[in-house]
């Protein structure tokens, strides 16, 4: 069985490592990117089944990256979970408006992240 691909986009190496530690036990194929621009590029190249996207990043922030991905035919329906310190209602509303599927607030809770990923990927 081909493992599901998850693209992890975050400028913090600590968060990327944390996400990899949590998700690797479910045997996903994990791809990483360090900012929104690299995230969009890798999403178009690798066609992931799910994207975990940080909000505050250099070069291109998470919201801009989501808008960009939603405009591309190849990625317009890929589920995107925003992983962010901004848990305020306003940020969440913007995220949902531009087409993100769900939110995970930092600091990441491993059970919450795994549950959401499994639920979205239908595992």
């Amino acid at each position: 069985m081909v493992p599901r691909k998850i693209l992890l986009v975050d400028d913090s190496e600590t968060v990327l490592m944390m996400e990899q530690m949590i998700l690797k036990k479910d045997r996903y194929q994990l791809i990483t990117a360090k900012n929104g621009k690299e995230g969009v590029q890798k999403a178009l190249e690798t066609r992931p089944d799910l994207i975990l996207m940080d909000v505050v990043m250099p070069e291109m922030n998470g919201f801009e990256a989501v808008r960009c991905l939603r405009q591309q035919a190849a990625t317009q329906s890929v589920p995107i979970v925003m992983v962010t310190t901004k848990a305020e209602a306003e940020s969440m509303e913007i995220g949902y408006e531009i087409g993100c599927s769900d939110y995970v607030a930092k600091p990441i809770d491993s059970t919450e992240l795994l549950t959401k990923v499994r639920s979205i990927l239908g595992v």
Partner: protein
Amino acid sequence: MKKITSESVRGVESSRTCGKADTPRVKNHYERSAQLAQENRQRHAKVESLTQELERCRAELTATEFSAVTAHGQGRLGEPFTVVETQNQSLINLFVAATRLHSNTERIGVLTAIREILSDLIGSQAMAVFEIDASANTLSLVECIGIEPEPLARIPIGSGPIGKVAATGEPHFGNDGDSRLVACIPLKLGPRVTGVIVVFRLLEQKQELQSSDHELLDFMSAHAALALHRTAAQTQLNAAHRSRK
């Protein structure tokens, strides 16, 4: 003993109607029998009703017992699961922190790792790292986010909660009486204090430090100090190599 049933009572009653030439004594006997049969029927009805009530109570008790056992079982299973989950989260945090701190050979990389650990793993919104400047007997601010750096650029050792942590080597938490900071942890190389890590504020969604955060801060106390010391030693070594060449 022969059991008196409704049928047998009805038999007695019907036989009474047949005896037209009965003596008064026999008549009394029949009347008494009919009365007893009537009482018997009423008691039968009562027994039947009580039997039904008993069955209903038994079913209710079984259901209650099942719920109680299930709830108890879930409690017994659920509690260790939560504990394991917390331990798992704590281990992941410690592993990530150790890897980030000790995989960096540059001082800037270690300071970035400390900042990320405090913000991304603990949930700190405002933090600072100080190092002791032994020659001036002060703490110097070397890394910060979410605070104005100027007022905290240099803190005399022993002054205020941050200076006291540097002086005593004992951690200080906001719930110890000072609400201006959440946690103040000494950076220690063995018994020697080399600096202080301060968490001024947590993210809005994080109410308070958890036990796993305390474990991580304990870990940082020794390992962040070691990682910073190692990079400083490496820098000195590199400088010595260059001068020798």
